[in-house]
């Protein structure tokens, strides 16, 4: 019921219908970018994007065409009547925009999403290179107690298996 709905703190209102907290304005392109970056594994249909971004068909089509030219989106025209769009998962812009998404929340909330994602990126994407370049490897684990869990990231020595803590995530 409406009476039970709590009011959103004023400082959060600029994040409503305002991609990246307004960093790039509130254009249809920014809204489409936020939508596809937030859901990169989905096959996007223009109609759905229109509804999700509250934008008109021509403006969404225009935004998608621009994003295709920029290499962030790939069009699948196998069904010519109903083309679909996918995020180019190989694009480094996708990674950068994902990190930006986290950074915006981190700056507001004091959380550690971006750093955790960077470290995860190091482990999952750069792991082999890091092992070759350094004397250890990144490792992350969670420590839990009664008050919640904390993510710890460390480097583990390749020769001794001893670890050195690098950072500590925010508690849940």
């Amino acid at each position, binding site marked *: 019921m*409406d009476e*039970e*709905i*709590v*009011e*959103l703190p004023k400082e*959060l*209102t600029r*994040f*409503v219908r*305002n*991609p*990246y*907290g307004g960093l790039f304005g509130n254009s249809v392109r920014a809204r489409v970018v*936020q939508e596809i970056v*937030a*859901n*990169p*594994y989905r096959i996007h249909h223009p109609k*759905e994007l229109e*509804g*999700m971004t509250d934008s008109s068909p021509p403006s969404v089509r225009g935004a998608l065409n621009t994003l295709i030219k920029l290499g962030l989106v790939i069009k699948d025209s196998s069904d010519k009547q109903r083309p679909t769009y*996918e995020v180019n998962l*190989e694009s480094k812009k*996708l*990674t950068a925009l*994902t990190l930006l*998404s*986290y950074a*915006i*929340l981190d700056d*507001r*909330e004091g*959380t550690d*999403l971006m750093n*955790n*994602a960077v470290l*995860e990126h190091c482990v*999952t*994407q750069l792991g082999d290179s890091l092992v070759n370049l350094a004397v250890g490897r990144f*490792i*992350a*684990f*969670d*420590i*839990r107690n009664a008050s*919640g*869990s904390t993510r*710890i990231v*460390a480097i*583990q020595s390749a020769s001794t*298996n*001893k*670890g050195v*803590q690098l950072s*500590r*995530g*925010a*508690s*849940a």
Partner: protein
Amino acid sequence: MNGSDKNADLATVESNLIARPSGPDPTEKVADLLADFLKTGGVRDLSYCEKWCEREGMNLSNDVLVLPQTTICKSRTGGKKGTKVVWLKAITWAENWVRYYDTVRGHHKHMVPRKEISGNRNK
């Protein structure tokens, strides 16, 4: 954290990477919505969330808003005539569960796609 913890045998605790996080389990499907929230400022239009859930075969009220209000709740901007939104309040809780389910699935990283993912999608 004390000095001895710092020097703990990290190989032993590595298995904790996929340990269940604390707090209420949002379920795997809702974790996907939480991943969306984490990338979109933690606040979404109520109508957006309803569409999102409908598309995924879920119901916002029954599947998402049943979680404790300390984690995610219905809210509104600027008084009774304001925009209805869904507000993710427990960011770290959400992050932990998103990471947990991504880890369990192993094929669906929430930040950067692994190369094999795009390879599979192109098949």
